[in-house]
């Protein structure tokens, strides 16, 4: 800054023009640095760990009318195996005849193994404070944490998964709603942002990787740990679309597209986000 000021004094009109141009750039960089530092200062203790601990405890408890724990729930790595499971989801599950993401698979286990109705299992998908806590958000945080440090590896070899990937990609670019929005409106260009928050370009591997590998995440603004289903649900709300149904094929298709786009990157969640 002082150098710009002295330049203006010394070289006159031309330099004034340059300084005026340089001003906003300097300000923006300062803001960016400050923003990066704030995020760094936040990273030390992630309250998502509270959700992870709750999910971990829930995992081994007998649950539902049938009093069955999640230890018989197969996330694709064998019954009860959580290590690395999140990094391979969504995948095709022959027992369900569907491609499923983590949340959908957990609901399937609650219904088919623990004896809950679907309505009971999905009664509270997104929590609201300590009086209305979502089991699914805690379970999702726990299972995801067990992939911390594991490389994303969503296989498209199965034609069912490939089909969902293709549908998800189409849906990502599909314009709809009163505001003629698409996911791509905000997430297919570099350097777009809301306030100080940069919006990831999810059509590029780097953007998709950075975004996908940090969900689920503790949302500072909400004081809640949110799953990827929540992320998509809220993106639909922001686009003024109808509600995205939890575990719907559309939600799984979009998840498949974005998860597979993150392949090769190391999963590092649950994250902490504003």
């Amino acid at each position, binding site marked *: 800054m002082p150098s710009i000021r002295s330049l203006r004094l010394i070289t006159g009109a031309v330099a004034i023009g340059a300084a005026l141009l340089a001003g906003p750039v300097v300000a923006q960089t300062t*803001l960016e640095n400050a923003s990066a530092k704030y995020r760094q200062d*936040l990273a*030390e203790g992630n309250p998502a760990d509270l959700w992870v601990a709750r999910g971990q405890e829930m995992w081994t408890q007998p649950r539902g009318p049938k009093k069955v724990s999640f230890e018989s729930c197969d996330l694709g790595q064998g019954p009860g195996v959580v290590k690395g499971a999140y990094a391979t989801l969504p995948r095709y599950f022959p027992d369900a005849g569907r491609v499923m993401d983590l949340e959908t698979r957990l609901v399937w286990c609650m219904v088919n193994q623990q004896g809950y109705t679907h309505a009971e299992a999905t009664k509270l998908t997104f929590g609201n404070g300590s009086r209305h806590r979502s089991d699914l958000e805690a379970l999702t945080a726990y299972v995801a944490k067990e992939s911390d440090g594991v490389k994303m590896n969503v296989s498209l070899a199965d034609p069912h998964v490939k089909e969902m990937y293709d549908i998800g990609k189409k849906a990502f670019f599909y314009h709809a709603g009163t505001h003629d929005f698409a996911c791509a409106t905000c997430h297919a260009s570099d350097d777009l942002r809301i306030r100080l*928050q940069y919006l990831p370009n999810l059509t590029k591997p780097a953007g998709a990787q950075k975004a996908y590998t940090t969900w689920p995440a503790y949302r500072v*603004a909400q004081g809640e740990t949110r799953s990827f289903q929540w992320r998509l649900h809220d993106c639909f709300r922001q686009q003024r679309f109808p509600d995205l149904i939890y575990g719907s094929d559309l939600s799984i298709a979009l998840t498949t597209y974005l998860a597979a786009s993150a392949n090769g990157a190391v999963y590092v969640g649950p994250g902490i986000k504003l």
Partner: protein
Amino acid sequence: MNADRRQVLKTGGGATLLALLAAAGWIPSAWADAPGWSKADFDAHTMDDALKALGAGKPAASGDIAFFSTPDIAENGGVVPIGVNSKLPNTESIAILVDKNPFTLAALFDFPAGTEPTISTRIKMRETSNVHALVKAGGKYFVTSKEIKVTLGGCGG
């Protein structure tokens, strides 16, 4: 609601008012301050009142108190990381105060001998404000201050 309010207004008086508020469900019945919590310190609305309540008088500015891992700009005032370290000998306590919060004193930490006079926590800030680290060392008070800009307030929103 309106009837309740009128009744409250008519009755006036501290104890009766509290009882009415409790009866109306405005104050949880189990409401009771934790033992050892200094209500007077935390009720202060201004820096002057807080210093008075704490018995800190006019604290001297000190270069031996430092903020660390504390941002210049917080994008969400609901969660502002604050780290304070004191190099003053015989540091007994560190208080964190926020000028423009509804209540000035945010937190007070007491350090027995053997505990490093260093603390990290996270606080809410209503708006951009000066944040003060007030240290009691050897029976005297010292302070250092830092402005933290808040781009989104921490009281709801």
